[in-house]
């Protein structure tokens, strides 16, 4: 009986991945360390601060997880965000109803994603280049249509979306948690979403097995862009205005969170939403830790960079190692 339990525990750890297990321990260490340093760290209020400072990136990380497991990359998310923020703000100040404005902007975001996917499918442009070009184009466009100025004067009903609370928790945080739980569950258990592991591992084999690889590529890029668009809407709501400088460089933070979570950038077909969640928490807590500890935030990028490298080295060394199942 004991053997059976230890078999199950080891198997669960292998399933979870030794990487995730190690990540959990690192997170715990960080939390314990911070709690010892500051009694305010482990309070509901601080948790709120932790999450709200990273929630937009966190939402985009959900989409990026799919893109990266499928073997692609999406650098355009950080430009879709300000673009959609400005668009929704302009529509609202022009008097378009809130629901319709949001739907238009989300559809627009999906189209951007489809365009990224189309460049890959039709012209065989590597997603790195395709989405980099998209990022530059969109950021430029955002500057052009906003003339570099704040688009403000948004209706209260709309800003509630970014500033309001539900059961004491900020609405964007609710949105993030609902999305990550739903799509984490679907990624793990749904037939359609599970394709990502086959396609990311070997698109040709997936095609031969009868999967619609191109359709799936459209989906992942569309989805990633959709979530970036949603993040943009929430950003406009949170700040009560939109500006083209939103989310500058955020794509790298998002990718960092996904990569720290153990999703492989080298070969597709590896990664979990749980890992991404750990990566997000790690980045968010680290961010908070710097603010609370009074160390110059200049150091934050240095630490993040080192942590990213460590996490990836950890993933690479643990990849081939697993607990022996006897």
């Amino acid at each position: 009986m004991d053997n059976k339990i230890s078999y199950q525990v080891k198997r669960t750890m292998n399933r979870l991945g030794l990487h995730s297990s190690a990540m959990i321990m690192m997170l715990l260490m960080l939390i314990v360390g911070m709690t010892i340093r500051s009694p305010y760290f482990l309070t509901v209020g601080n948790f709120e601060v932790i999450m709200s400072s990273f929630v937009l990136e966190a939402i985009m990380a959900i989409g990026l997880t799919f893109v990266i497991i499928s073997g692609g990359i999406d650098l355009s998310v950080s430009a879709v965000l300000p673009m959609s923020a400005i668009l929704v703000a302009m529509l609202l100040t022009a008097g378009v109803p809130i629901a319709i404005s949001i739907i238009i902007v989300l559809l627009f975001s999906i189209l951007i994603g489809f365009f990224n996917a189309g460049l890959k499918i039709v012209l065989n442009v590597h997603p790195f280049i395709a989405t980099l070009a998209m990022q530059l184009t969109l950021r430029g466009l955002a500057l052009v249509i906003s003339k570099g100025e704040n688009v403000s004067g948004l209706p209260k009903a709309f800003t509630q979306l970014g500033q309001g609370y539900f059961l004491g928790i900020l609405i964007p945080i609710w949105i993030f948690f609902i999305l990550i739980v739903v799509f984490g569950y679907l990624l793990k258990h749904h037939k359609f979403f599970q394709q990502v592991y086959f396609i990311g591992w070997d698109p040709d084999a997936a095609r031969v097995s009868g999967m619609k690889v191109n359709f799936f590529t459209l989906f992942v890029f569309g989805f990633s862009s959709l979530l970036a668009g949603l993040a943009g809407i929430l950003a406009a709501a949170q700040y009560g205005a939109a500006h083209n400088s939103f989310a500058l460089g955020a794509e790298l933070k998002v990718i960092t969170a996904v990569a720290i979570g153990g999703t492989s950038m080298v070969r597709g077909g590896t990664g979990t939403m749980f890992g991404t969640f750990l990566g997000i928490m790690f980045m968010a807590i680290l961010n908070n830790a710097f603010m609370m500890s009074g160390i110059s935030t200049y150091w934050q990028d240095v630490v993040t960079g080192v942590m990213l490298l460590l996490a990836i080295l950890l993933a690479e060394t643990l990849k081939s190692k697993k607990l022996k199942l006897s």
Partner: protein
Amino acid sequence: MGKKILEVQHIDKSFSGNKVLKDVSMDIMEGEVHTIIGENGAGKSTLMKIIGGIYSKDNGTILLDGQESTINTPADAMAKGISIVHQELSLAENISIAQNIFCHREPANALGLIKWKELNKQARAVFDRIGLDIDPSLLARDVSVATQQLVEIAKALSLNARIIIMDEPTSSLSENEVTYLYSIIDLLRKQNVTVIFISHKLQEVFKVSDRISVLRDGELVGTVDKESSSMEEIIHMMVGRHMDDLYPQKTKHVGEVILEAKNLSRAPVFKDISFSLHRGEILGFAGLVGAGRSEILRAVFGADPMDSGEILLVGKKVVIKSPKDAIDQGIGYVTEDRKQLGLFQSMSSRWNIVSSSLEHHRKHFGLIDRQKIGESSQTYFNLMDIRPKDDSKNVINLSGGNQQKVLMAKWLCAKPKVLIVDEPTRGVDIGAKSHIHNYLRKLVDEGIGVIVISSEQPEIIGLCDRILVIAEGEITKELDNRQNQVTQEQIMKHAVIKEQLHG
């Protein structure tokens, strides 16, 4: 064995003007194990990919159960009960083997959520058919390559395949695993599943097949019953000549010592190795895998370190600390693993050929002399008879045999005095093999010394004038083979002798 399950008639196929299949016709009987054998590039895989719907044919018809049928996509083939177990495994490693079997056909509820219990149950049922007892929820990366192969077969069965095509399934398996695979093929035969087996390993072909079809240069040479045929006959059909002609003549003239190694040691890999290589001879290093043959010669080449010992080249002591030293001194090393160590896969043959001798292809100020490179490349291209005759093609697009020839050309271009060749013909078909052997002989006749490491004893005996047998890092026997007098038993005896001493 009853009716014809699959007939291909008058199949033609060309790739960019190159005819790879010419008027191939063949019948496959229900429930038989039918091997397609032929050299690399003979068209075996192309034919199978046409049957599997991966390639389309230019001409000809395919009949299933006597009915003409169209197979345009892999999905068509699967729907008609034809599955291919690919040589390069295509399992996605981060999901369970059960899921890999039912790859996108997993049992799911109305919302599309996978029913895991049902999935594992169904996977187990398929495993039962091939007598495999394994937890279907294990991730593909957690099971051995052999098991992955069996999972591929299970996948084919789950598709209700009546015809399973196995493309060189044993190439990455150990001996035990191969035996197990044979037993599974037997099981399949009993379940009236037809197996088409692609291979170029003759012994294995004779073990598993009922009938054997031989392809050569895209044409069907013939189909024979195993019972009424012999290996010699098959070889003759494959290459169009007899086995006796397979190896070149032995040396006519042995010259002075060109390379001498004295007391080379590196604990614990090899100890006290001394040997000499003469002009005009091929020296063979025989022994079991792991005996230390490659390690010794890699040390001579400077690719591995060594604790003590000295190397003399044409009577002069030389210091070799890196491969560059060795190349400068005129020693070349054709590596065993041409993919990882020998060739730049995504560069053209031309650049590969000159890659170890760029110093000889320079103009003023160290600039590259492209014209000279083109000339050198052409020379060796013709010499080695590399096909297709286009040295601008990337190496990755060449067949295994031709890649091996490019690798040899690369080292010849560096004009070595001594050439070490590690497994010269691994993964190479018989035709190209023979060409490489003849060429090695020609090289030594011109005065180069050649050392061959090979795990294939017929190759060592057929090719080498003198054989050193290595066991556990020591030379256990030197055998003179100029009269072709060495036997496999002799080599084997000395290759395992140390093991016996140690019990």
